[in-house]
């Protein structure tokens, strides 16, 4: 099977399987899976920027918040349909992201990360200050839930999960299209060697801006969905120290520059605190130990470990395979 076809067929098959399994899950599992899917949307879109283009943005927690508050305002105050509001929230976050990027791309490396950290902190503070729009410290309450999907008779938890999975599917496919496009090739070149990329005629500004805008758009849609599912948002959900860093962690632990690795990272790091809830005092400790373990022993993340295991398996299979070959082989 052609590798690009496989890139689109496998996630589609997994989406179908997950949707088919949804009616058989209890509400708690559905809730955790919904959160994991939303985190996975953030992680996949962030991987396009961090993993493929090599820019560490700490402003994306705030962009996630922009999408969430925009979703709240559009659906509850302006009365917009959720399905219309969802992409519009993405566009609003994307415009905010482009403004951030115009500032941040004046710097590079560590300075880029520090500048986006500053923007993330300002953005988070703005959610407190702009009380009329955000509800300030009290939060934004009364955000309508996502509407029921047509043709499906699911309760709200099942409906939320399917919508989250659909958004993840769209994000993954869009990210796949991006990384296989000339812009994706340009992004990889920028990550690897900016001077060589320029020497090959790659327009650095256009490629990295598109990667930033892409990640901001999907962070915005994830924010809007998160707001609709939670019915309530507050500034603490969008702090640099929480969401901003969490996105980095998901991508790094999952495996940068793979797209599917960050999904595994999101699943692992969303379910881990839930499974350790019985020993909640130790859950953060376990989280930290896990991060340390990956950084020290598996810096290419879960995806790197799986790829290594797969290659080892293939090597073993090649060694074990019979050496007899068809008699015609030497003729070719």
């Amino acid at each position: 099977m052609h590798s690009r076809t496989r890139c689109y067929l496998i996630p589609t098959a997994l989406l179908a399987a997950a949707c088919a399994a949804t009616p058989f899950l209890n509400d708690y599992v559905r809730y955790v899976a919904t959160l994991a899917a939303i985190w996975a949307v953030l992680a996949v879109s962030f991987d396009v920027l961090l993993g493929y283009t090599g820019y560490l943005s700490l402003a994306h927690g705030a962009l996630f918040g922009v999408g969430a508050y925009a979703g709240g305002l559009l659906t509850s105050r302006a009365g917009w349909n959720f399905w219309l509001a969802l992409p519009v929230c993405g566009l609003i976050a994307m415009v905010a992201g482009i403004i951030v990027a115009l500032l941040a791309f004046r710097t590079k490396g560590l300075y880029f990360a520090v500048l986006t950290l500053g923007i993330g902190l300002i953005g988070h503070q703005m959610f407190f200050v702009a009380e009329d729009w955000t509800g300030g410290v009290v939060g934004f309450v009364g955000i309508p839930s996502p509407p029921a999907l047509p043709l499906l008779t699911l309760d709200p938890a099942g409906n939320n999960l399917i919508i989250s999975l659909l958004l993840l599917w769209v994000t993954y496919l869009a990210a796949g299209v991006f990384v296989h496009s000339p812009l994706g090739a340009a992004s990889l070149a920028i990550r690897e060697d900016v001077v060589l990329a320029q020497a090959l005629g790659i327009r650095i500004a256009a490629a990295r801006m598109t990667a930033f805008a892409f990640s901001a758009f999907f962070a915005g849609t994830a924010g809007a969905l998160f707001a609709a599912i939670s019915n309530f948002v507050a500034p603490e959900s969008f702090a640099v120290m929480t969401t901003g860093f969490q996105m980095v962690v998901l991508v790094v632990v999952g495996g940068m520059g793979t797209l599917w690795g960050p999904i595994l990272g999101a699943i692992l790091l969303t379910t881990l605190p839930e499974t350790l809830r019985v020993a909640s005092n130790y859950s953060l400790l376990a989280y930290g130990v896990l991060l340390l373990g990956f950084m020290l022993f598996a810096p290419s993340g879960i995806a790197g470990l799986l790829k290594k295991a797969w290659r080892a398996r293939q090597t073993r299979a090649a060694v074990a395979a019979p050496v007899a070959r068809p008699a015609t082989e030497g003729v070719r």
Partner: protein
Amino acid sequence: MSLMSIRHLSRSFGGVHALRDVSLEVPEGIVLGLIGPNGAGKTTLINVISGLIPPSAGSLSFNGRDHGPWPMARAVGYGIARTFQQTRVFMGLTVRENLRIAAEAGHGLRRDVAVDSGLDLEPFYDRVAGELPYGVLRRLGMALALAVGPRMLLLDEPAVGLTSDEIAGMGRAIRRANESGLTIILVEHNVRFLMEIAQHVAVMDRGQLLFQGTPAECQGNQAVIDVYLGKGQADAEH
């Protein structure tokens, strides 16, 4: 007919004059060898032509059109590609990914470059560049420049650090590229290698153009022998 005209080009770094009033015509379809002692300004000239650094004064015209100092990405758009003195490829990516990036940057015009160029990269397609031997990396660097589909190729010491077999292979690849219509400026300290390939030679010294002519004329020029060639030939014999 000249593909590129360099007029009164100068470039200073603080008080150091790396290029002083260099004027040079580069006819289309030739291999122009650029030689000179260390610090003569050869790499600076390549850096200015390719847009890596702007000139302090002077101008360039390419393909009959005057161009100001251009950023490197735009120079590629005009049809100028380059390699680097220090090997520069995408070390974290496979050879296939390296070539794909370059082909995409060149609008997919030269996807088959690795086969066409005779650089013998097919056996390494799925290897990560960072794991490859130095000689293969030099060939990959040239393949990347070829893959963007240029009209002029600037090669900055392509034979440096290569074994004699690898140098011969590089020479064949350069000739092959030239025979396909590419104009090449070749900066090289290996004078014997350069003289075998170049149809024209330009000699630089202390930022200035000392001589321009055929390899035979160059080898008979006393000023060139005094400044560089005598030393270069002596080096080659050792």
